């Protein structure tokens, strides 16, 4: 509607990032997916201890999960599109309180664009973030509990202040 203010519900922009690497699309795709556990920031995962691996099952419908040293697995999401070495899409099903939520379906799309000089631009778009807003009621309910929204906000504060 034309009377709707500019700051509307649907106006949550995706987080878009890109990086150009000295590698072919094939190598970049492989390093991004199969090698994810080697570069993923160790402080950003669900499990309590360090993770041993981050696994993306390489097919549509495959699971995306972390595996702890003791073998315990924590789901992160699943594969929505798998088109090596050009593109893949993951469902990021980690909620604002940093827990797996099968009903949450934000999307991470990663594309690999080759250049003539052999480099590849990797572009990542994390979208449908309004779905975090759709969980606002649950987030409100969890406010005040240690595992709730203040938990992730505290983690965020620690993160930006670090």
């Amino acid at each position, binding site marked *: 509607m034309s009377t709707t203010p500019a700051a509307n519900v649907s106006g949550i922009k995706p987080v878009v990032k890109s990086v150009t690497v000295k*590698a072919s699309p094939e190598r970049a795709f492989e390093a991004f997916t199969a*090698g994810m556990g080697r*570069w993923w*920031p160790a402080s950003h995962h669900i499990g309590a201890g360090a993770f041993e691996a981050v696994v993306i099952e390489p097919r549509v419908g495959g699971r995306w999960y972390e595996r702890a040293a003791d073998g315990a697995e924590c789901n992160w999401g699943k594969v929505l599109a798998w088109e090596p070495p050009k593109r893949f899409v993951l469902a990021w099903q980690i909620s604002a309180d940093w827990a797996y939520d099968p009903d949450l379906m934000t999307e991470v799309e990663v594309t690999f664009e080759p250049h003539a000089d052999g480099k590849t631009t990797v572009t990542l778009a994390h979208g449908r*973030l309004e779905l*975090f*807003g759709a969980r606002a009621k649950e987030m*409100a309910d969890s*406010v005040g509990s240690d595992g709730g929204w203040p938990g992730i906000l505290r983690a*965020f504060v620690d993160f930006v202040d670090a």
Partner: protein
Amino acid sequence: MTNASRALAALGDATRREIFDRLAEAPSSVGALAAALPVSRPAVSQHLRVLKEAGLVAETPDGARRIYRIDPRGIGAMRDWLDQHWDRALAAFKDFVEETEEPEA
């Protein structure tokens, strides 16, 4: 203060949490909130101002009154967090893929 710590501080008050909780269920006017809570209208207005400054609620005019609702950008802290997370992650990815590059010739 960061947006996130502002949000934390705003939700540190029980009445503001109650107001936030009610707005999560349904958008509401100051009058309706005051009628449902054991606090005065001016007090509700003051709490809403704090929540608004923290980015947790937004208001839209509806004739003479204003309707308050949860601001979907209240998840802005989450978005900011993801923004920084992916910055850090992609930098680490670049280091990894370039360190492990195989010689091509």
